[in-house]
């Protein structure tokens, strides 16, 4: 197991290196420069600023400098926010994103899981049909459309929740809800399919033949086996939340990583784009690794096989 994790970590490093390199050259090939009002600046001031940030150097020199900084855990300084430390900014903004993200996933898993279980247990009844239509809607409506609608109706028209900005807990609800819809839609379908399949297995009949109550059979024998494969969709769902958050944060004015990422691309803030990319890549890779480990931990077939393989 330790060997397996080590191998995965090394692989992650290589992947990250490739991502950083690709992103580095891609952002630098974007049209425009990080400077605002470039035309109005006197050439000598312009050169001085570029020199200060090392942007006058040849690209490969900049690349090696940046990579050198990375090994010292230095992500460089932001170009649009007056030379602030990227690492510092990420730290400040991480909390907001993480909060609405986790809350979104949590809402999604609870509601989606619940709907999925109910539709599996009451196949073809109204609750099943309701869940099916909800998830079709949820999958087909992009989260930013929903975010816009929520912000307008719940926030502006009815005034139930603050339409945007950040400050109190109430501000986190609508962003999380907008993010959770896609999770609800996908996870409920997934749980339904898995649970229906599991409940048709022979071992469910064995459990019933022991005289266990229906509830005990579903809970102990059904759900656990249905949820094991469902763990694998947590990875894609996390990615889903992350990409959704880019736009949703922008719409609700959440001071998070997503908003920073979008702004930094628009402003050609090379270092900020790279910083957020590194951060997102790490986040995704680590969550996928954790999910794989979790999967092996819940499923004894994998767990034991892994141990024996050592």
């Amino acid at each position, binding site marked *: 197991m330790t060997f397996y994790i080590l191998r995965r970590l090394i692989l992650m490093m290589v992947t990250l290196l490739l991502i950083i390199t690709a992103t580095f050259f891609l952002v630098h090939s974007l049209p425009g420069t990080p400077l605002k009002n470039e035309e109005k600046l006197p050439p000598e001031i312009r050169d001085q600023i570029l020199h200060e940030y090392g942007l006058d150097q040849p690209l490969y020199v900049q690349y090696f400098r940046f990579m050198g900084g990375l090994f010292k855990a230095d992500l460089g300084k932001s170009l649009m926010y007056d030379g602030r430390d990227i690492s510092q900014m990420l730290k400040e903004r991480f909390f907001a994103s993480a909060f609405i993200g986790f809350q979104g996933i949590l809402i999604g898993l609870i509601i989606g899981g619940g709907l999925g279980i109910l539709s599996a247990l009451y196949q073809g009844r109204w609750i099943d049909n309701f869940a099916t239509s909800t998830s079709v809607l949820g999958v087909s409506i992009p989260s930013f459309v929903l975010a816009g609608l929520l912000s307008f109706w719940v926030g502006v028209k009815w005034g139930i929740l603050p339409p945007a900005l950040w400050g109190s807990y109430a501000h986190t609800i609508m962003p999380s809800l907008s993010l959770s819809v896609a999770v609800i839609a996908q996870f409920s379908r997934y749980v339904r399919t898995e649970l229906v399949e599991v409940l048709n297995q022979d071992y469910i*009949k*064995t*459990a*019933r033949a*022991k005289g*266990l109550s229906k509830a005990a059979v579903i809970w102990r*024998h059904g759900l656990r086996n249905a949820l094991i494969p469902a763990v694998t969709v947590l990875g894609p769902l996390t990615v889903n939340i992350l990409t959704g958050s880019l736009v949703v944060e922008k719409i609700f004015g959440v001071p998070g990583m997503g908003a920073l990422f979008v702004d930094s691309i628009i402003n050609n803030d090379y270092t900020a784009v790279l910083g957020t990319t590194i951060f997102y890549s790490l986040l995704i890779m680590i969550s996928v690794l954790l999910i794989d480990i979790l999967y092996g931990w819940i499923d*004894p077939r994998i767990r034991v096989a892994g141990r024996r393989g050592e």
Partner: protein
Amino acid sequence: MTPLLTVNNLHVSFHSYQGEIQAVRGIHFAVKPGETLAIVGESGCGKSVTAQTIMRLLPSTAKIVQGEIRYEQQDLTQLTEVKMESIRGSQIAMIFQDPMTSLNPTMTIGQQLMEGLRKHLHLNKRLAKKRAEELLSLVGISNPHLRLKQYPHQLSGGMRQRVMIAIALAGDPKLLIADEPTTALDVTIQAQIMELLKSIQEKMGMALLLITHDLGIVAEVADRVMVMYAGKIVEHGTVDELFQHTKHPYTWGLLRSLPQLKQSREESLVAIPGSPPDLLHPPKACPYVNRCLQAMVICDQTPPELTACSSTHQVACWLEHPMASKEHENRAGGDE
């Protein structure tokens, strides 16, 4: 001796898009305490449905159309689900055909074994564990302490079927229903499992309702046999009666499809030609008429009633009618 279980005029149907599938069409039988009753018949004749009906484990598309299942003083068809749960596992237990899929892959053997113990015997964890080890030893599994902590995939097919038997025994049932318990196993293992079932039955004094299509097993372990065809009982009697005084042409067909010791290699097994009727539209008359070599005119017109030829032997065939020609009795001698 009063029977432990009595099934009276049981009809079970499935609802499908094409209509009503009449899987079981009016069967009667009784199981006495401690005896072994075998149900034989080709695949699809309603053996498993009968077993599942007794356990009340039918899928939701199935319905008990009529009939009663008497167990001790109660009619199982009328019991509430909660009442039924207290009977399953503790009064009547069941083991299934495929041990590879009948155990939960994500729970240890111990967990699966202790569930029944805790539910029916109300044992605490420590006692349940002790009893679980005893049960594993009883079904011939060595190292029970270690096995309790293992998962099904770490056990062979034969071992898993032993575990299934141990699970079924957990509630100390009076009747064990075994639905083709050896069909999915290796031939060498089959005999071991049957021997085990037999010895445990004697030790615990329980009745066994054994479903199989293997007449060899029937001859070895059963006291009485019931032959089913297209959802009905066609012949019913003691093992001796069925093997030595075979009455129904279908039973004959089954016996002739058995491999024989003196059979030479070139002689292939004689499977009964043709196939059973469609249970969506079951025939009004004798269901076997299309495949029967001795069919008479009446066989295609009026269904034969199950009639007694001795106090223990019954058969549903027009050939048993006093007016039928007795020519077939000679054929029963075995020479072609």
